[in-house]
């Protein structure tokens, strides 16, 4: 039994005010904008990603590589001292499989130029002829291998190079 039926009916007769027509338009506009974000750029090209040298990444990479090389060197320096006597007393024909060397041998360096920009002619101070300045962005990768263990180490970092090319007047 509901004592409030009559009151509920009275309440239901109250009609909430209709939202302004502008609200529906704003919602439609928002939905269109949202839908548009996932579609093609409609002729607007994506912004070209500008190159920014990551000094922090470069520093950390080089520090890690230096640390690894130092450890490797320490290992190399220590291993002869430890094994000198043993190796001299008991040489194993055919080579020992347990004598592992920590030597890392430089295996190569790759340099990928992924962007080159001609910045035009520039006149350096005191120079009597202009130079053309070319800025190149590269990704350099240094690699080391351990021939015995097959371990490898590679360090990759971005770099920027500015080349000044003398231009002679014709």
């Amino acid at each position, binding site marked *: 039994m509901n004592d409030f039926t009559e009151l509920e009916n009275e309440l239901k007769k109250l009609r909430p005010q*209709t939202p302004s027509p502008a609200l529906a338009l*704003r*919602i439609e506009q*928002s939905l269109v904008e949202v839908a548009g974000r996932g579609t093609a750029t409609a002729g607007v090209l994506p912004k070209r990603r500008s190159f920014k040298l990551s000094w922090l990444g470069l520093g950390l990479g080089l520090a890690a590589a230096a640390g690894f090389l130092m450890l490797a060197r320490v290992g190399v320096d220590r291993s002869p001292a430890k094994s000198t006597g043993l190796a001299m007393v008991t040489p194993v024909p055919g080579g020992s499989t347990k004598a592992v060397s920590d030597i890392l041998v430089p295996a190569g360096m790759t340099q990928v130029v992924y962007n080159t920009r001609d910045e035009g002619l520039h006149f350096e101070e005191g120079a009597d002829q202009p130079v053309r300045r070319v800025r190149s962005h590269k990704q350099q990768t240094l690699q080391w291998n351990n021939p015995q263990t097959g371990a490898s180490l590679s360090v990759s970092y971005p770099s920027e190079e500015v080349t000044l090319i003398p231009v002679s007047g014709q």
Partner: protein
Amino acid sequence: MEDVVTHEDWKVCFAQLGPGLVLFARQFVRTSADAEDIVQDAFVRFWRKQHSIENRALLYATVRSVALDLLRRDARRARREAHASLEMEHTTAPQFDFDDGSQRALAAAIDLLPAEQREVLVMKIWNELTFADIGTVLGISQNTAASRYRYALAALKKNFVAHE
């Protein structure tokens, strides 16, 4: 199977639900403009995620969440609203189209209800949510929602009759 909304029929859904949604949002802010901003934001969020329009609890929970976010962003307004809610001060009444003076008095009586009862009343009467849905929206049990509804009706009956 749930009726998943599509981009074509949002206007139909909004025409049906819009007035109740704005009325619900109005429980949190003082002006219709703010309430419409809340509804716009919430409705677009809800629609964009392709929720079922049958999931009324989620729709109203979204409106409530957006409204509370708005209040939090505006610290001064939040303090004012919280103060108003706590002390059950007179706030701007939910806006209705009145046919006669009796309805105006009833709306004024609604305005005197505590905020927690009023929002349950608004969801139940003008948005036709179940107590289970209301409980979901408010994070309370459906029994608590039903109790608040009954308290609201009892208070309305008392106040409305007193003013008649």
